[in-house]
């Protein structure tokens, strides 16, 4: 009998030492109730936006997980290839919903079914969160886990040979499903004062007749047109992984990778903003507007004119002149200044050392 799964062999998420069927659970939030008020059905039962609620102390969610008919037979031998004439419709498994709140360093699990047995169909239970423990965002993910060991007598009574690959240990993953996200408080990533950062689906944006958004295969879009006073950098949600790492970075790998993504995006974004701000600079105006123009030069002038000690307005004036006279020299200057500001080599080296183990 394979009594323990060898934990020292290399495991990828897709390759398990036992048979499992990932992604088969259907999970949704049926309703929620804020501080005991009447339950509300969410508009989107997998993406809840609760940021409009302020000053609550508890929210109770009703969680539902649907276990499809075919799944249990595939992953539990007690139900599956049973030699018993009338196989049981319940098997030794638990439907667990795991909650993870990155901002409060909190993870917890709750079992939806009773008695360590699951049958096909929908199980539901409530989950209550307290304002003390959860902030920003809560992500919930469903799992189907084996609940009891598969004993050797059961194996032989089911006619299973020694080579079977059913999970035998309690807690082993049998299936999972898509997560539900609950937004609790508004949260902006990035801290660049001059730039608002948002996320949206470019595919959806393109459904509108006139849209400034680029096609859905692009990763980001810097919008300087719609509101010239307020530049917005949009990340394309159609690239789920990218957005997830930037917004919901979790652990060293994600954080270091987010830095690389950030540099990759910010390099052309800074360059474009510098060029536009220089081009539109008016030395005779009373005030230097929009505000982001001086902000860009405050960040970059020391790199644009290294060792020349130029003030931000002087730097803008010089760069404007140079853009007119010699675009090649001016764009090279911008290119180098942005690298001076962002220090991309540092992030790449950090990534290589800490993630790539070089």
């Amino acid at each position, binding site marked *: 009998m394979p009594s323990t799964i060898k934990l020292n062999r290399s495991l990828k998420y897709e390759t398990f030492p036992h048979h499992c069927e990932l992604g088969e659970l259907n999970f949704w939030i049926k309703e929620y109730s804020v501080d005991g008020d009447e339950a509300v059905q969410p508009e989107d039962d997998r993406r809840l936006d609760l940021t409009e609620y302020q000053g609550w102390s508890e929210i109770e969610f009703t969680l539902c997980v649907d276990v499809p008919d075919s799944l249990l037979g595939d992953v539990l031998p007690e139900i599956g290839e049973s030699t018993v004439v009338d196989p049981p419709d319940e098997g030794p498994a638990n439907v667990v919903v795991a909650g993870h709140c990155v*901002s*409060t360093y909190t993870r917890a699990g709750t079992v939806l079914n009773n008695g360590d047995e699951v049958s096909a169909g929908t199980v539901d239970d409530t989950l209550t969160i307290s304002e*003390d423990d959860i*902030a920003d965002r809560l992500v919930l993910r469903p799992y189907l*886990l084996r609940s009891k060991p598969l004993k050797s007598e059961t194996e032989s009574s089911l006619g299973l040979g020694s080579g079977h690959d059913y999970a035998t240990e309690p807690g082993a993953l049998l299936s999972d499903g898509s997560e539900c996200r609950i937004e609790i408080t508004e949260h902006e990533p990035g801290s660049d004062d001059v730039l608002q950062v948002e996320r949206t689906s470019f595919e959806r944006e393109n459904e509108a007749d006139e849209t400034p958004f680029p096609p859905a295969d692009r990763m980001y879009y810097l919008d300087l047109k719609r509101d010239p006073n307020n530049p917005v950098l949009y990340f394309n949600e159609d690239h789920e992984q990218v957005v997830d790492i930037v917004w919901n970075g979790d*652990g060293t790998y994600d*954080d270091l990778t*987010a830095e690389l993504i950030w540099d990759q995006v910010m390099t052309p974004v800074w360059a474009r903003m510098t060029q536009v701000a220089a081009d539109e600079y008016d030395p005779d105006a009373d005030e230097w507007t929009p505000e982001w123009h001086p902000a860009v030069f405050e960040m970059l002038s020391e790199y644009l004119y290294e060792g020349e000690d130029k003030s931000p307005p002087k730097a803008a004036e010089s760069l404007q002149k140079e853009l007119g006279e010699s675009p090649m020299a001016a764009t090279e200057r911008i290119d180098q200044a942005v690298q001076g500001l962002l220090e991309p080599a540092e992030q790449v080296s950090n990534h290589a050392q800490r993630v790539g183990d070089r």
Partner: protein
Amino acid sequence: MNDWDPNADLEDGQELVRLADGAQSLLSKYDEFLRGNHDSIPHSELKPHIQSAGLTADLATLEEELRELAADTTPETAQADPESAVIIHRNVDLSRAEASDSGLWSAFAMLYYPWFVDHRWAFNSVSAMKEKFWTQARALDGKASTFERAWWIAELTCEEKGDGSVDYEPTRRALSKRRFSLLVFDTPMARYEPAVRALLKVLYDEPEDDDEDGELAENEVIDETIKRFRKSGSVFPYEGQRKSDLEETIRNIRSEVEKSIKASKS
């Protein structure tokens, strides 16, 4: 009141302030601050970034206890880590949701106790020292600022007793070896409390005699056990296991690891 007077003494029950994101750029602009010249950022430049947090903490007691600790510990080493986490957590009573605001912890490092950040960390580079004053990401050991790191590691490890008192012995144990805190608290695994407790239980060797000190296992054992335990999490999701299940798993892994280390040495 959303101001802070750099010349006033810190008080117990003092209202806390937070620093808005913009204050981060002052650390690059005045990098003498990172090199130990804590008067180098003009108050007029800090002021627009100071916001009221609507919370209080015993800052005078904390100051006194940090001063004593600094006097008793070797500068620029991890020696002060266990006790500093305990006294910071004890004097700053917040809920997890309140403590999730990094701006709060930036104020502890940049405004109230920059000298303690200096005591703990050597200046290696501007970007590395900046991380000690300003949290760069949610990885507690690697990229969290000094006070945020200390408070949260205490929060994730201390145990509230039935009588309401708090036992900080697990906190001291968790921070007794940098290797352990680095491998555990930089990962999402640390957020599942039973997993941290189980790791401490199995990897900390209790003393055989009452008058001796216990200690965490050797680095080699810590490294490999935690590595394999983290891998096990994708097959056995942590949230489906209790502390006792996790302890058994970790105990099995540790004995396998020790066996293979012994075999490779002989």
